[in-house]
């Protein structure tokens, strides 16, 4: 008897979550059908790009608590890998999607292996240095590959043969949000796995985690590699959308904005990333009427936001299983 009532409670709890998720997904799918304005759909596309980048940084900063202020560097690696391989060798960009992820991941592995033992602010400054080195190297046009400050242009649209070419705003909109949806699904699965638990343990107390036999170095590196791979994917889509990549898109300021996405939303919280990305990408568009005052307002809002909700707009709940266990516990006491 008891176990059945537990199951009912859990199901009810899950159902509520499912309803909400369903409505959100429907809203996202129906959005371009209702709104025909290409400009607004484009804004929603960039909201998606920032969400993807925020999700990728959320793995490093939110789940493991590693301060990474050079995350745009990984996206730059992905974007430039796509741009160079596509314009030089004509490889289709959809094939380059996994390749740019792997390129960014390998780069992250090579760069982060020696620095992974650094803690807190030291890691922070080294990642800033790394991001700046990437950007400055791209500006300097090594081997004539990156095109210097102008960047690389003429990147093709993603296409599957001649069957489907992603070339219009609504198509790009669906493209990015399908990728975001898949990533969110994967990341939620990851959060509830052994790896996710190990990450959270390291974030809460790295020394205790190590004492309990978690390979801290391995899991930290894994977070960097996965985060970089996702950033590489975002870089690829960004490059194909704009058809041009230039070093200015990957500045220190952008890395700081990514940092803010995770913190505004709430560390390690996936719904929080959506809120943070919305704040960063939609805010400047909504307040366009204020013209030159909009970034000023943006800065002020960031301060005010942190005064009233320092934990983020949608802080991470305790793990799902614990929530359900709590629910069951409450129900049991009622009986």
């Amino acid at each position: 008897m008891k176990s059945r009532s537990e199951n009912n409670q859990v199901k009810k709890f899950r159902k509520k979550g499912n309803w909400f998720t369903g409505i959100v997904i429907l809203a996202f799918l129906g959005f371009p059908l209702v709104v025909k304005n290409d400009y607004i759909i484009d804004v929603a596309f960039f909201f998606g790009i920032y969400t993807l980048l925020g999700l990728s940084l959320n793995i490093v900063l939110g789940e493991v608590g590693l301060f990474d202020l050079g995350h745009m560097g990984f996206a730059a690696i992905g974007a430039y890998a796509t741009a160079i391989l596509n314009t030089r060798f004509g490889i289709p960009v959809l094939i380059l999607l996994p390749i740019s992820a792997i390129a960014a991941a390998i780069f992250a592995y090579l760069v982060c292996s020696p620095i992974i033992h650094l803690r807190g602010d030291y890691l922070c400054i080294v990642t800033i240095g790394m991001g700046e080195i990437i950007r400055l190297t791209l500006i300097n046009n090594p081997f004539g590959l990156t095109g210097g400050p102008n960047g690389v242009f003429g990147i093709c649209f993603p296409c599957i043969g001649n069957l489907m070419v992603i070339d219009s705003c609504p198509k790009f909109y669906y493209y990015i949000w399908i990728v975001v949806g898949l990533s969110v699904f994967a990341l939620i699965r990851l959060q509830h796995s052994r790896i996710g638990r190990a990450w959270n343990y390291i974030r809460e107390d790295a020394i205790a985690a190590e004492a309990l036999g978690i390979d801290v170095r391995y899991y930290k590196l894994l977070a960097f590699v996965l985060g970089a791979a996702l950033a590489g994917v975002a870089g690829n889509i960004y490059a194909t959308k704009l058809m041009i990549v230039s070093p200015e898109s990957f500045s220190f300021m952008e890395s700081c904005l990514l940092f803010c996405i995770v913190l505004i939303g709430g560390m390690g919280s996936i719904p929080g990333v959506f809120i943070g990305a919305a704040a960063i990408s939609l805010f400047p568009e909504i307040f366009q009427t204020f013209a030159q005052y909009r970034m000023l307002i943006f800065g002020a809002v960031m301060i005010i936001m942190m005064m009233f909700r320092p934990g983020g707009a949608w802080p991470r709940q305790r793990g799902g299983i614990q929530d359900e266990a709590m629910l069951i516990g409450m129900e049991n006491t009622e009986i």
Partner: protein
Amino acid sequence: MKIIIEQLLNGLTMGAFYSLIAMGYSMVYGVMKLINFAHGDFFTFGSYLGYTLLVMGVAYVTSTLGVWGGMIAAMLIAAIGTGILGIAVERIAYRPIYPAGRLPAVVSALGASIFIQNSIMVIWGPRPHAYTSEVIPGYIMNIAGFRINILQIIILLLSFCLMGILYYIVQKTTFGAAIRASALDRETAALMGININLIIFFIFALGPALGGTAGVMVGMYYRKISFTMGWNYGLKAFTATILGGIGNIPGAMIGGLILGVLEMLGSTYLSTAYKDVFVFLVLILVLLFRPTGILGEKIAEKV
């Protein structure tokens, strides 16, 4: 040989700017454990204050005080103005957020940085400004075959004086001991009767004031100022802070000077385009082999 000495001098000048800015970072980090991202913009603000006083009031200020007097007056005004701004930012943007922990304060600092930067843009306009030549003192002298700009020497001397004064305050006076004590352990320092609020007030006035002074110097030396330059100088100065050992004030001075000299030598002998890459590579290498910086002390980790 001649090139080396001239480049060393240029590097030291640049390093002096970095040192002046870095000390502000270091003091704030030492006591508050906060990376004050707005610090680079304090520097820009100081630069613009000096610009307003000198270039907009050129007829009055320079004619009454002379060129050198105008320079000193601009530095004083910039120091006072940025000091007040620093205190205001601390009161409004940081103080309500301290209890929530370190990371929200970082976001708030970034917000403050964006706010100040855009305020400067709104007030003075988005285009870069120039310190015009009639307000800039100095002429080129030939000393033993070296072409030396007097302004450069004066800037170097002034910044060394400022650093010396700060070094004296922090290392030799009772008040400095209180600052160092609060940097070591804020709670215990408060229990020993140190007025933490006074210390915070002081570091948030003095750090930005030094940055503002450096802003006027940079304006005088490079002549061109723009509202976004704070990011670049702030990043370099923060690098210098880490290089010298974060939270350590003599370390910040030495780190800044080393960074400036490295940057100049790198651009002379390696490649001008890659000088910043070189700087960051050196930083990463230093951190790999000496994670606490050049003068930083090794802190055992508490469990």
